[in-house]
């Protein structure tokens, strides 16, 4: 048997909750072609979960998989993908992944596993105990019904303070499509909590004293790690500071690099002032303050510190301390989060006293972080909040809810922008209580299915930012024109791809971005100025493909696609270049298997194509173009009537998008008419068996047209 390549823990753990039995497989031998992470997940789903399986069926599987680089000192390597038949995908649940950071990925690998495949269903609530290769199912009846915080505490009491617990809250227990799995306080994987709940698996506790072998030379490894650190920017790989700096030619007020010397972590004791060079390697953690980025200057005085995933120096989560939370709301003064989860509470309010960066906004966010991450509620990238506002403003709640239930909701608080409103609303959603809670906890599918609201009305409304299949846009044309549109058509939930947006929002002036784009994707025309889009061209298709493949690769390697790829850098001496081969260089050094950029990207393409195959199989249609790769109506409209390709609009042109999809399918070597991979496309990626199985059902064109 070949030795396990470096970087891998070596084993995949299978847990059959129906029988209580465990087994293991060799990671690389069994799953090596699909790298890990989402690739491993797709492989399991393809081979073992029958087409048409529902998310809460016993037949569905839940694949927690990290990647070869997780658990090492590679910066930004703390990610776990959780792949399953995704509950909120509507109207028919299809393959999808939630993603979470925190400590889970590293701890799982130190415990000896690269992945956990959860199968079957337990008769009674259980939690999974994993310590250094020793696994057990333990009774979770005393934990069931409780929040994630207490669950984590009690499991830690049983396992030890250094364990990492991934748990569901009440929302997941009640099979809410809007349920998360949370580890390490604020790291949540969206959408998959209900699958865990359906299997009666309350939590996974992982503890490990093992380690990972790095195949490559130690000095070489150290140099590459240091190189990676040197080309890091701040969160989302924004490579210029938000403030003019003597150390930078460029700045961008919209940058997430907000840690200006002179600012301080005001709630640290004593406060920690930011000093010194903004490029200092021992100051990387001070660059990002997500709370300050979203909530304004007030957040600094409440900042205790940054936090985040194992090995990542960026610390995109902010730990906040707001004393008013205890006195006003009886909640913990301390909360932590980033991005959407940080904004969970604030986004429910169309207006707040003091504005979006005032005290009420801060308090609303604190409530959201504390409650949503305890009950394990997902926001569907802010869609639950947008849906709520639309339904409330259009009188749908008033029309549809029974009068008693409607009257029981403190609407006056909502209209007044009183954060206390959330103390009533969030538990309704988490407990799926009443019609309101039940509908909202289903995501956009709730109003569609339960109240017969046509999806088309969401698709026509710019304010919803709804895209398709129950999910919103995620960095689409508002950020990146056709490239963003293409990316958003390809998945069965919101795309969760940041490869493209990290680049176009990195803060460099357009001419620098275009110069880099020319080197990376063949032409400066692969990138446009925001809101000043030009017509589709093959270079944009190239870039869209790159963005998707790299995202998939990151999800397979345990890397963070909210930071990577690292193709731009803050370094003037490098011409602001990053390194487009960083992933393959790390992969090769860690594993000892030499894969250059093209070869590793090919593996990523294989993984993404398997996702495509799964989608085709489970939709039972080859017409991806028509049935799946949809674009909502609002994308083709402008509220002020501006024309596509004029300055100052994100409006796309139907024909041009048609051409964009043509070019994308072409570059993927898929059939242009259907957007389905051909037999040849599968064969090129060593997916012959997949191609044949689909062809047998008439779901794989023989050749592209």
């Amino acid at each position: 048997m070949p030795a396990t390549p470096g970087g891998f823990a070596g084993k995949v753990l299978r847990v059959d909750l129906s029988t209580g039995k465990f087994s293991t497989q060799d990671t690389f031998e069994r799953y090596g072609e699909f790298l890990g992470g989402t690739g491993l997940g797709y492989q399991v789903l393809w081979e073992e979960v029958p087409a048409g399986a529902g998310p809460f069926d016993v037949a569905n599987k839940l694949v927690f998989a990290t990647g070869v680089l997780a658990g090492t000192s590679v910066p930004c390597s703390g990610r776990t993908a959780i792949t399953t038949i995704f509950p909120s995908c509507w109207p028919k649940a299809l393959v999808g992944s939630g993603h979470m950071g925190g400590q889970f990925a590293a701890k799982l690998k130190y415990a000896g596993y690269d992945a956990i495949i959860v199968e079957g269903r337990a008769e009674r609530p259980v939690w999974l105990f994993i310590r250094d290769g020793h696994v057990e199912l333990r009774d979770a009846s005393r934990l069931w019904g409780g929040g994630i915080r207490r669950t984590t505490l009690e499991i830690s009491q049983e396992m030890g303070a250094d364990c990492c617990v991934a748990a569901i809250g009440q929302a997941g227990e009640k099979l809410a499509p809007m349920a998360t799995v949370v580890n390490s306080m604020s790291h949540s994987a969206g959408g998959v909590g209900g699958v865990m709940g359906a299997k009666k698996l309350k939590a996974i506790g992982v503890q490990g004293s093992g380690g990972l072998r790095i195949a490559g030379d130690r000095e070489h490894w150290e140099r590459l790690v240091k190189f990676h650190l040197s080309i890091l920017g701040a969160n989302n790989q924004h490579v210029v500071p938000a403030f003019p700096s003597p150390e930078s030619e460029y700045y961008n007020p919209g940058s997430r690099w907000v840690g200006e010397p002179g600012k301080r972590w005001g709630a640290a004791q004593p406060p920690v002032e930011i000093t010194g060079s903004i490029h200092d390697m021992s100051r990387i953690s001070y660059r990002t303050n997500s709370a300050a980025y979203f909530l304004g200057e007030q957040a600094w005085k409440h900042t205790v510190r940054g936090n985040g995933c194992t090995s990542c120096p960026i610390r995109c989560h902010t730990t906040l301390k707001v004393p008013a939370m205890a006195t006003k709301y009886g909640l913990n003064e301390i909360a932590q989060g980033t991005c959407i989860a940080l904004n969970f509470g604030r986004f429910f309010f169309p207006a707040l006293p003091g504005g979006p960066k005032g005290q009420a906004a801060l308090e609303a966010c604190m409530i959201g972080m504390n409650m949503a991450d305890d009950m394990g509620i997902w926001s569907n990238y802010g869609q639950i909040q947008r849906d709520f506002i639309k339904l409330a403003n259009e009188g749908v709640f008033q029309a549809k809810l029974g009068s008693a239930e409607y009257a029981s909701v403190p609407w006056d608080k909502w209209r007044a922008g009183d954060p206390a409103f959330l103390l009533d609303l969030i538990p309704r959603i988490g407990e799926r209580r009443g019609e309101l809670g039940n509908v909202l906890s289903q995501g956009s599918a709730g109003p569609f299915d339960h109240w017969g609201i046509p999806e088309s009305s969401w698709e026509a409304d710019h304010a919803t930012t709804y895209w398709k299949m129950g999910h919103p846009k995620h960095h689409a044309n508002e950020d990146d024109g056709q490239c963003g549109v293409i990316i958003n058509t390809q998945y069965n939930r919101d795309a969760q791809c940041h490869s493209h947006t990290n680049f176009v929002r990195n803060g460099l002036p357009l001419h620098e971005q275009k110069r880099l784009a020319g080197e990376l994707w063949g032409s400066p025309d692969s990138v446009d100025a925001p809101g000043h889009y030009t017509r589709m061209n093959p270079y944009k298709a190239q870039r869209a493909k790159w963005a998707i493949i790299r995202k998939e690769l990151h999800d397979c390697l345990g890397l963070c696609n909210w930071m990577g790829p690292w193709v731009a850098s803050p370094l003037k001496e490098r011409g602001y270049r990053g390194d487009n081969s960083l992933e393959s260089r790390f992969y090769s050094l860690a594993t000892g298997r030499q894969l250059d950029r093209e070869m590793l990207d090919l593996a990523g393409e294989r993984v993404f194509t398997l996702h495509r195959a799964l989608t085709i199989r489970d939709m039972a249609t080859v017409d991806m173009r028509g049935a799946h790769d949809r674009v909502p109506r609002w994308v083709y409209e402008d509220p002020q009537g501006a024309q596509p390709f004029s300055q100052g609009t994100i409006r796309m042109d139907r024909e041009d998008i048609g051409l964009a999809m043509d070019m994308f399918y072409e570059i993927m070597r898929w059939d242009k008419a259907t957007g389905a991979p051909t037999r040849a496309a599968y064969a090129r990626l060593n997916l012959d068996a997949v191609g044949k199985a689909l062809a047998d059902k008439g779901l794989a064109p023989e050749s592209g047209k």
Partner: protein
Amino acid sequence: MNPGDTARLADAAGAAVRAASGELRLVDCEAVLEALASGGQFGESEPAAREAARALLPGLLAGHPALAALESRTGRTLYYAPDLLSRTYARILDRKGSPLLLMAEEIRLNSRDYPRPVPVELFQASPFGLASEDIARALAAMAADPEYRDISSATTATGAVYLFSTRHLERGYAVFLAQRAESADMNP
């Protein structure tokens, strides 16, 4: 002055410029001369040595491999160490004496290079450090002055004010970009 002395003078001048750059100051020849004198560079033969240095300094500073020069708004040549001060920052420092020029040039550069309008609050923050009254006064003065006819403002739906130059940005696009910047935090 012999070559050895000249070389030493060049080194000392470079060090003086570097020291100033480290303190976020741009310096002209006179200021360098002053710094050298108070550092005891010229010793006892001060007046003569100083005059000799005055004649040589422009050439030495211009040719110094570790220094950069910029033409000040006042017409003088100013020197700085580019590894300690970016050109962008140096140019901001140069304009600090004149709020109008400070703001207008920055607005124009942003409109031309990125391109984007800038939030008015930018000029309150470091390194601009203008009080809101000064900003208001400067904007009013610009509105009345043909030299600054291109400086314009756009107000977003939420009432945020962004400034741009019509030389480089069309109003409609500036409004769009301002709106986009204001709503970036709603697009995480």
